């Protein structure tokens, strides 16, 4: 790997957006293909960040800053890809939100950020999202993944309501449903007919990748 890509990978790992932007420009000037830079620097960098989060070396601010660095580099590579008529390989389309009655934002946003940084196209619907809104946005975006967050023991049931609404709209076979949130767990996913449960943002990326087979 070239020195520039190594530095770019490191800039993602330590979460330095300005450096990442500068190094992305440098990489293009050195005639490095943007797709190569994404595959060899950005993605492996995020992988390290995820592993460190999982093991308790990294916490929320580290994840956020790494994602910012990733975004800064992508803001450079994005237009370069367009100019080359190339596309970053999109792993899947995700519609994600916190279910109706629940206003917990942070965990859900973190999952959205990590999925976006890992190559998914992400539509974050925000918090307190009614089941009908999930259905509507899945139809509009042809999403193949739905992420449902709930942090309250009382709002978890609205995760089930979304699964049911997707079923009624005939969309259930089109999408894989992943749930998260403190009180949830794999048993709850099974109870309500979701496809999987993820414990945290890093696990969510692995779980979603598995579900879509990449």
């Amino acid at each position, binding site marked *: 790997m070239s020195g520039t890509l190594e530095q770019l990978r490191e800039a993602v790992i330590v979460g330095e957006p300005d450096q990442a932007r500068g190094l992305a420009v440098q990489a293009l000037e050195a005639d490095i293909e943007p797709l190569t830079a994404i595959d060899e620097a950005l993605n492996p960098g995020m992988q390290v960040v995820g592993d460190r989060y999982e093991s*308790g070396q990294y916490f929320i601010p580290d994840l956020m800053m790494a994602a910012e660095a990733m975004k800064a580099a992508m803001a450079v590579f994005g237009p370069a890809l367009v100019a080359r008529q190339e596309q970053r390989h999109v792993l899947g389309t995700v519609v994600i939100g916190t279910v109706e009655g629940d206003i917990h934002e942070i965990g859900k946003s973190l999952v959205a950020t990590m999925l976006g940084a890992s190559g998914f196209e992400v539509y974050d619907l925000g918090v307190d999202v009614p089941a009908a809104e999930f259905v509507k946005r899945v139809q509009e975006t042809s999403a193949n993944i739905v992420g449902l967050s709930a942090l309250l*023991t009382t709002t978890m049931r609205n995760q089930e309501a979304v699964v049911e609404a997707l079923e009624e709209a005939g969309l259930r076979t089109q999408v894989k449903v992943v749930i998260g949130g403190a009180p949830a767990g794999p048993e709850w996913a099974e109870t309500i007919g979701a496809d999987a449960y993820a414990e945290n943002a890093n696990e969510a990326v692995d779980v979603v990748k598995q579900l879509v087979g990449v």
Partner: protein
Amino acid sequence: MEDILSRLKSGSVIVADGAMGTMLQEVGLPTGASPEGWLMENPDPVRGVHRAYVEAGADLILTCTFGGTRARLERPGLADHVAEVNQRAAEIAREAAAGDAYVAGDIGPMGEFLAPMGKITYEQAVEMFAEQAAALAAAGVDVLYIETMSDLNEARAAVAGAQQVEAGIPIFATFSFDSHGRTNMGVSPEQAAEALLALGVDAFGANCGATLEMTEEAAAKMHEAAPHVPIIVKPNAGRPHMVGREAVYDATPEDMAKYACSFVALGARIVGGCCGSTPAHIAAIAAAVKD
């Protein structure tokens, strides 16, 4: 009643209350509704929960104002009623305490990141916390009680806001350690203790959290870092898990009482419960630590 700081200095253990949110859901708080908004129309059930804790043996009850900052009151459309909501909540708690318990003015996190990760600046945060603290103090709470903090800067802003209110009002602060022994923002118990000690907070510790073990370990580390400060431990009743479609917190009143004794043994002076705990848990704790 002697003031709460003298009571703490005497070395006696103060029993704090348990959960408010999960209790209110059982007496009619609709799913997703803001407890602070709901109490304006429904003071009786809120007073009832407070009173149940006092009768269970709590010496200290927290006002139903966890989401009482301007940032949090925006959603129920009460951003311009910060003073009114917090004062009303404090009155309800004082009525329930009826002189039998101290009333702590509860201040929770804003639910958004501070800059640079989020939009709220440190100065804006201080201002919002000061606004809430002023209303609680004006309604005569005995102490301002900042809880469930994850971010050191937000905690600093909350303490700074509380300190603007009136000279001499006691300030307590607790963090939630739920991620590998740290807060989800990466703050260790030692870092939290050092920061709060430097700010002159009167008592501090751990609340909410993930497991009882993790909260216990965090409290022990805070005590080690600040041996002369009274430590607070107010954990969840274990973790919720699903039994069919019902969420059940796995710690029984007996479990919580056993933990409370070990918290006291390692230096805690204020013990109570957080999410999932009930008056039965507090009664068991009171019986165990007041022997």
